[in-house]
């Protein structure tokens, strides 16, 4: 009962309410068309990748880092898989595995660079982003690679009961695993502890460096999955893949309640936020809105939901005593 009450006051609850209201509104506006199997399928189909990139960013935000290379890692991995299959005839499972590993490696490299060089994560991921964009272009140039086996594409477009796209289920599964890991496993808890209060974590025998590396690697791995889903569901891959991932990757977790300072695991919030952003797309098509208006609406929704959330946390903060030390203090022990 107590925990139920606590949930009622969370960002997730606000988002859930906003999402449901929005959806009902869209259903009414489309005279029920939106409930048709095909419309629902399309709605969910394009949620898979946004959910994953939001999660990929959320993991690094959880340790107080950020990852500017989300799009570059995903795009690079997708193109690598495409080229392996189309140009080198590598069997599908092997190519996907290699792509996934490449993305995870890229994440690992980010983490290692941050830890070893102590350069700001912002700069490190900016640099790796630049490098990977270059590699992506070198791999595919300006063409669209699509000569890979049909089987993969049918996996990408298959929908259970014609409604639930397989790739969406995969994304949900990843979200579930991530939530489980962050809530119930030791490395997951340690990762959040490092993000929540690095000094305290260190004093409790947790290696913050390890947490940072794990978070970046996880981020890369999730992007690897995103790349697989992308290549499976796209008409092909080209250098534009991943080009538009950066802002949505931040928007979903932050709307979902993640703190930029670290320590928050908001898997559900991120997923819900991705839903809401997706509803905006649907509304755009439904009302033939100009993109300008859509941007306008997105801006307003973001601001609105977060202002609401802020009012709530402020109310809670009155009772707050233990807080994450600010960055100034964080410099103290090293």
């Amino acid at each position: 009962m107590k925990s139920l009450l606590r949930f009622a006051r969370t960002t997730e609850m606000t988002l859930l309410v906003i999402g449901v209201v929005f959806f009902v509104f869209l259903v009414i506006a489309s005279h029920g068309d939106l409930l048709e199997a095909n419309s629902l399928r399309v709605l969910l189909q394009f949620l898979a990748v946004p959910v994953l990139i939001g999660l990929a960013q959320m993991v690094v935000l959880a340790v107080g880092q950020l990852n500017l290379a989300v799009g570059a890692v995903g795009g690079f991995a997708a193109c690598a898989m495409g080229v392996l299959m189309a140009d080198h005839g590598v069997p599908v499972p092997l190519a996907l595995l290699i792509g996934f590993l490449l993305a995870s490696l890229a994440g690992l490299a980010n983490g290692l660079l941050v830890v070893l060089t102590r350069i700001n994560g912002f700069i490190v991921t900016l640099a790796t982003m630049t490098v990977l964009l270059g590699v992506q272009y070198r791999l595919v140039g300006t063409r669209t690679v699509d000569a890979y086996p049909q089987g993969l594409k049918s996996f990408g477009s298959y929908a259970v009961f014609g409604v639930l796209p397989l790739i969406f289920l995969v994304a949900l599964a990843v979200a579930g695993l991530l939530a489980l890991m962050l809530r119930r496993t030791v490395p997951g808890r340690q990762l959040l502890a490092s993000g929540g209060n690095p000094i305290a974590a260190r004093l409790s025998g947790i290696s913050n460096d390890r947490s940072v590396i794990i978070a970046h690697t996880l981020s890369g791995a999730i992007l690897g999955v995103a790349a697989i889903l992308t290549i499976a569901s796209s008409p092909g891959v080209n250098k534009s893949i991943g080009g538009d991932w950066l802002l949505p990757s931040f928007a979903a977790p932050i709307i979902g309640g993640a703190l930029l300072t670290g320590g928050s695991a908001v898997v559900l919030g991120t997923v819900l936020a991705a839903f809401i952003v997706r509803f905006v797309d649907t509304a755009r098509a439904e009302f033939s809105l100009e993109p300008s208006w859509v941007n306008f609406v997105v801006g307003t929704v973001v601001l609105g939901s977060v202002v609401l959330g802020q009012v709530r946390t402020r109310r809670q903060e009155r009772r707050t005593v233990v807080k994450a030390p600010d960055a100034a203090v964080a410099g103290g022990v090293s």
Partner: protein
Amino acid sequence: MSAPVSETATAALQEPDAPVEQPRGGRTPWWANQRIGLLILVVALSALFGILRPAFFNQQLVVFPLLRDIAMFTVVGLAQMCVLSIGHMNLAVGRMAAFSMMITGISYDLWHFSLYAGLLVGLVAGTAIGALAGWVIARTGVNSFVVTLALDFLLLGLIPLVYTGLTDNAAFVTKPPGMRELRNYSLADVCIGNVCGSPAVPQLAMFAVIAMVVVGWIYSRTKLGRELLMTGTSVKAAELSGIPTARRVITAHAMSGCLAALAGFMLAVSTGSIKATIGEEFMLPSFLGPILGGTLLAGGFISVWGTLLGTALTSVIRKGLDLLGVGLESLNIYLGLILLVALSTDRFRTVLSDRQGVKER
């Protein structure tokens, strides 16, 4: 001055043998200073590129546009630096530039303003939109990241509506007198008697110099600048020290908007027209310059020189790669790698200086 503390208390407080607490920083050797490190990097890379491609020192075709670029991106960096100083971010720098240039464009196109009157109108618009962002942040307490991101989307929606409504080509092409000259003139066109300046230095760079001097002066000499930095270090402590932190948040964002507008103007002048896509490329460079230059993301410490040098470093690398004829297949790979290596050496110097028993700020 009447001392609030009497002699006796002072005597009690001053323990003659109490140890003096040494600063952790100690004395930093000159070579461990981040700014000097950057300067060395910039000079060394320039020399390297100059040796590989003598054309690197071509005054009109290479140095002139390079300096024009550095000038513009320095202003962009300063725009971000102002909000970084209070520990905030402005994700809408580019869009603020676009918004203020839109107003400037309207002033040229519809009201036939002169070049500088239009600039002034743009600066005012930029200041206003920045202040608006600051006001929302101060009032709601919502993270600056989110507010400016939302504002970015809002402007991204608004600006094209205005452009498509008011113009045929989605750009204001009216050029007030003086604009073309501003774009092309260098110090060679400024003469005192028979002595003229260098043709390598664009006149447009004066805006960056003015911005650096003003911003530098504000942060180093004025109460406002100090209060901004104090707010950046700790909002709570600042509020409890009588600093009007809400107003300072608004000021910082207003300054950011104003500088973004200036950068937008410089871009418009150097490319030729005022269009909706102005500032689209501003976001990453706006962070890169200040952060490379030592400005803290967390707030409380800035460096105007550092911003210039950080910007110069990236521009020089890019220019050098251009001249080496590196194709798009390799350009970004080299760009990223050089940046990483350059910064790692910077880091290496810091560690080395730490070894010698000192620690850099």
